[in-house]
């Protein structure tokens, strides 16, 4: 789960990570009040998940509370178009923060190194720019240190990484405390990514998180009730949000062929097969293992919420999932949802024959293999 900058800073502050003074605002008036309270110059920052915000005009400097209000008015309710989000992302809130006076910009990051099966801490003196670009052009400029799973990040490791990365010597002891607090926050909040870019050394010698990115491991949300309120705001697509409320794995992809299947790998392969047949999948939807009829009905409803969908392909290979349950769910869905679009169905595995028998004489288009199913759905939606 991705959370917003202001939420990440709330979490980090709880673990003693130094962040600039500031608060989030949902209205221009609130932004003005916060600016008033902070005094002096402030920055008004659009709260969106897409990167490249600054260049897109999503971060604005204000000298007065009036100006802060104007910036907030321009941002809230607008769509921010960034290189990462060319279609634009809606801005609902802005973070109003004290402007800080920057001496140096660095980079700190902690994430899982999958190949080494442990967390990696990354430090670079080349902060404030796209870290993937730094990694590509100046790989030596990123110092990495791997964390022993049962031991955690040790102070000497943090120190060593900061010295090796070329952080200003006089800042290293403060930066070490900062990095250890960041690691504590990463572990404590079950994060999958904690990134401070830029990590700022101010002209008066403080270390501050000018920006903050924190992604939380969805699998660990059960032990973090405090993130419940963040969950809602992490959703940007309304259909995805509705699917997740119903406990359905759904990702919207922008095409016009709805896809429903069981198992992530099988569904991904179905998307590949439909693309090979010349179609454009509208979504990824995995009903998981052992799905009952009402879940199947729900899945169909979710897929049809996307107005672009011109046809739906079911691809189910039953192991624990039973073909007759899937067929019942499809029939219920067709009746209760008054489905107008063509549906191609491919059932194999456990109780597939019983399922296909139930679907006979219904106008659904049967297919024996995944390949045939993909070809048929592309034909009927063309």
């Amino acid at each position, binding site marked *: 789960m991705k959370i917003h900058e202001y939420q990440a800073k709330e979490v980090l502050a709880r673990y003693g990570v130094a962040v600039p003074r500031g608060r989030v605002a949902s209205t221009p008036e609130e932004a003005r009040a916060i600016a008033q309270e902070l005094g002096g110059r402030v920055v008004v920052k659009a709260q969106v998940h897409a990167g490249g915000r600054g260049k897109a005009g999503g971060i604005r400097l204000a000298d007065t509370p009036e100006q802060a209000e104007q910036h907030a008015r321009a941002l809230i309710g607008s769509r921010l178009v960034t290189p990462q989000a060319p279609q634009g992302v809606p801005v609902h809130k802005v973070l109003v923060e004290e402007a800080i006076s920057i001496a140096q910009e660095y980079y700190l990051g902690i994430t*899982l190194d*999958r*190949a080494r*099966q*442990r*967390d990696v801490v990354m430090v670079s003196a080349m902060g404030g720019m796209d870290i*993937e670009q730094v990694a*590509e052009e100046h790989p030596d400029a990123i110092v990495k240190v791997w964390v*022993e*799973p*049962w031991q955690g990040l040790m102070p000497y490791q943090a120190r060593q990484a900061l010295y090796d990365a070329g952080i200003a010597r006089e800042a290293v002891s403060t930066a070490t405390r900062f990095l250890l607090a960041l690691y504590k926050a990463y*572990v404590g909040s*079950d994060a*999958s990514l904690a990134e401070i870019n830029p990590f700022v050394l101010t002209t008066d010698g403080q270390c501050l998180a000018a920006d903050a990115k924190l992604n939380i*491991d*969805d*699998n*660990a949300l*059960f*032990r973090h009730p405090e993130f419940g309120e963040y969950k809602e705001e992490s959703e940007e697509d309304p259909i995805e949000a509705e699917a997740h409320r119903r406990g359905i*794995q759904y*990702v919207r*992809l922008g095409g016009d062929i709805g896809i429903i*299947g*069981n*198992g*992530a*790998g*099988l*569904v*991904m*392969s179905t*998307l*590949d*097969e439909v*693309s*090979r047949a010349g179609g454009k*999948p509208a979504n*990824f939807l*995995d009903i998981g*293992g052992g799905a009952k009829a009402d879940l199947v009905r729900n899945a169909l409803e979710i897929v049809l919420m996307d107005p672009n969908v011109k046809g739906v392909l079911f691809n189910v*290979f*039953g*192991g*624990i999932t039973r073909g007759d349950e899937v067929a019942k769910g499809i029939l219920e869905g067709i009746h209760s949802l008054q489905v107008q679009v063509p549906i191609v169905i491919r059932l*194999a*595995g*456990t109780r597939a024959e019983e399922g296909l028998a139930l679907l006979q004489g219904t106008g659904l288009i049967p297919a024996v*293999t*995944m*390949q045939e199913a993909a070809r048929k759905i592309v034909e009927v939606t063309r």
Partner: protein
Amino acid sequence: MAVLIDKNTRVLVQGITGREGEFHTRQMLDYGTQVVAGVTPGKGGQEVLGVPVFDTVKQAVSATGADASVIFVPAPFAADAVLEAADAGIRLIVCITEGIPVQDMVKTVALVRQKGVRLIGPNCPGMMTAGQCKIGIMPGNIFTPGPVGLISRSGTLTYEIVDLLTKAGLGQSTCIGIGGDPVLGSTFVDLLPLFEEDPDTQAMVLVGEIGGSDEEIAAEYIRTMRKPVIGFISGRTAPPGKRMGHAGAIISGRTGTPQAKVDALRSAGVPVADALYEIPALVKQALTNRT
């Protein structure tokens, strides 16, 4: 002999009294697997489908001599269950549970590796030695004994491929679903050497997907193998940054792209099928070239 499990494997089910645990215990017994014990804390002394239930893994092992364990324990308690099995001397642990926090697995995997215990999963369908032993949730009826070994990151895709192989007259030796999580007890490269040494396996199918670099690492090892390997990568049309169900199936930044995986495998001499249905023909071709 096959890989890791055969008809002599004595299986323990952790979480046997749960709905899933009991259902799949029945399926495993029906397949002929020797399920010798179950564990659910607080339910020791009961029986499930004639299998004795114990309070701890330690008790179960000393009473029954179980040497492999399969875990159906809910996610919040699953890492603890793996560690309990490892501590009780179980040498092969298959963790079916989905949704275990990554940080739990980082610690657990580090410890089981240090102890030399083999962990398959988590978030996996388990493993099968066709005609001998089924541990986990794969549908037994699609398998038939034969010379093809399979390692896969996906569950249902494994069934799809096994079904295609069986229908093409290609039986299987051992099939292992390694799981869809970012941190796994066993990766391709941990298991390929076992198939390379297995006299029952003549050819391998490796089923990868987007995310991580396990396929690229496997490709390096495959260069040194004598047995032929056929590859398949799912998620070739998946957009970057979107998580496709499996926690591990996400293209982040410049790592985990399908093209990098296909290229790495092909450059190691692995024929990579563009579509599933091409797999049996490629396997047949590889078996013919070998003899």
